[in-house]
């Protein structure tokens, strides 16, 4: 088994500052095919048939999203590319943007044609300001070559807020507001940016578009599993010999990524999908990576046997509490309460009743939080209580035995 580079096929091959090197590798052929030989509906049909699902973590079918935006009434429509990659341990979009901005731009050009948008935004996180130049340069070259006559692409920079990777908070941020999540419905395809129909896609989702149009849905949906078509780009970091970006067919086992490619040893656990993702023990290392099982946005953080589970969870909850936007109380207060309890455990002062508190709190947050942050914030706690209960229990005994450090 090895890597399968579809999304990354041009990375470290073309010159990201020279569109000619992209055109040499079928660059903008898909856009020309869509524009000259296909109706917007046919483009959307091809995408639906491909089975492509959103790569930002939620896995919503891209074709359906585009279709809803196309069919929603409204004169002004928008395409947004979510390049606010803030999930802890994720850096694949950075790698893509710095190596192949052109495929992304081609994907946006096709998306705009399909849904009928004349305006598009790339929302780039502030931490990636150093990528602004390569991106705007690529947009300018594509415009000069006449590929963007139908759509204006603007780069909007964030200002440092994890929550702005959440689509509704991101749109509020483009509108110049605090990046707080919105109540839904309505959803972006009907009422998105400035209450207009909007399709908002992750960088990696848009990177798939050109090849789906060029090679056809039948080619794309041969790759992957029944409900997870295509490949996934993973960001692997932590206790591994070779951290980096790897692209694998969906359904590939976690072991292949972590052990065979990134060369991890003595693995204790793996966090999949960042701070709000799932934590799995080494025993489940053969789990296939797919939407049916476990995936997120593809952040893979590996922890070896020397790591302290309680410490890792405590730090994760601290991050979530800091980054909660504060709009809904289950998340704003819940993440803070979680930090307090985890801090008690990390100091060796946790008690048996704290476990019950964590479980009750988790359930309330999952059921009542407004967005994915609060709903998924309990994941690291729930997963470690399930797989690493001994680590919690030993801290409780530590308190009972009075051997607190």
């Amino acid at each position, binding site marked *: 088994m090895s890597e399968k580079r579809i999304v990354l096929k041009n990375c470290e091959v073309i010159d990201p500052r020279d569109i000619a090197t992209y055109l040499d590798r079928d660059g903008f052929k898909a856009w020309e095919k869509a524009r000259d030989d296909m109706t917007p509906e046919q483009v959307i049909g091809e995408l639906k048939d491909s089975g492509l699902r959103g790569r930002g973590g939620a896995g919503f079918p891209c074709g359906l999203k585009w279709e809803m935006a196309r069919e929603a009434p409204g004169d002004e429509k928008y395409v947004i590319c979510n390049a606010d990659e803030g999930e802890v341990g*994720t850096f694949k979009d950075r790698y893509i943007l710095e190596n192949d901005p052109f495929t992304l731009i081609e994907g946006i050009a096709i998306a705009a044609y399909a849904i009928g948008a004349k305006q598009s935004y790339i929302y780039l996180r502030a931490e990636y*300001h150093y990528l602004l130049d390569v991106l705007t340069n690529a947009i300018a070259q594509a415009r000069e070559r006449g590929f963007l006559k139908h759509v204006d692409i603007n780069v909007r920079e964030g200002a440092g807020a994890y929550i702005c990777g959440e689509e509704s908070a991101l749109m509020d941020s483009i509108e110049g*507001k605090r990046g707080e999540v919105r109540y839904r419905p309505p959803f972006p395809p009907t009422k998105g940016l400035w209450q207009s129909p909007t399709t908002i896609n992750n960088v990696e989702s848009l990177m798939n578009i050109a090849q789906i149009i060029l090679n056809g849905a039948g080619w794309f949906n041969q790759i992957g599993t029944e409900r997870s078509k295509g490949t996934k780009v993973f*960001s692997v970091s932590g206790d591994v010999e070779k*951290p980096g970006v790897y692209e694998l067919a969906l359904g590939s086992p976690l072991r292949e990524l972590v052990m065979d490619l990134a060369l991890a040893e003595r693995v204790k656990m793996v966090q999949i999908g960042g701070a709000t993702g799932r934590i799995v023990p080494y025993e489940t290392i053969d789990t296939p990576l797919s939407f049916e099982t476990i995936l997120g946005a593809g952040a893979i953080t590996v*922890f070896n046997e020397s790591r302290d589970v309680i410490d*890792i969870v405590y730090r994760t909850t601290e991050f979530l509490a800091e980054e909660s936007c504060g709009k809904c109380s289950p998340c704003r207060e819940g993440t803070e309460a979680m930090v307090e309890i985890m801090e008690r455990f990390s100091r060796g002062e946790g008690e048996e009743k704290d476990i019950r508190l964590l479980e009750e709190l988790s359930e309330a947050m999952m059921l009542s939080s407004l967005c994915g942050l609060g709903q998924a914030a309990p994941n690291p706690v729930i997963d470690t209580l399930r797989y690493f209960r001994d680590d919690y229990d030993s801290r409780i005994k530590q308190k009972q035995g009075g051997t607190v450090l």
Partner: protein
Amino acid sequence: MNRNQETASFQGKNHENLLVLLKEAQSKFGYVSEESISEITQSLGIPVSEVYGVATFYSFLATKPLGRNVIRICKSLPCYLKNSRMIIESIEDKLGIKPGETTSDGKFSLELTNCIGACDKAPAMLINNDVHVNLTPSKISQILDSYE
């Protein structure tokens, strides 16, 4: 951007410039001052509370003066696993300040930040807009000395 078809009274779109203007003030003066906030309030015709609310929401906007160079060391897990603590300590020692503080000569402010997406080259930090990766304590002096 094409704004011809829009009426000036469409407050929703006027709002769009708020974050842009705040970011401009931040990069021009190193922070968003009270003067900047009242100027923006007047030019956009939106309440001061709204402007202040946005200015204080984002971690890259500051309402108090910062040093000429802002160091943001990543404290998230992937960097933590690669001993970011040692980097934080060596910068604290070198500059004589703690996170949240600015050197007395106004040259550096030190902050800790969440994941900056350089986990494959951890530990990492940003100084202003530059990313510095694969840090070791021995590299710190040379990096800091390269800033004016």
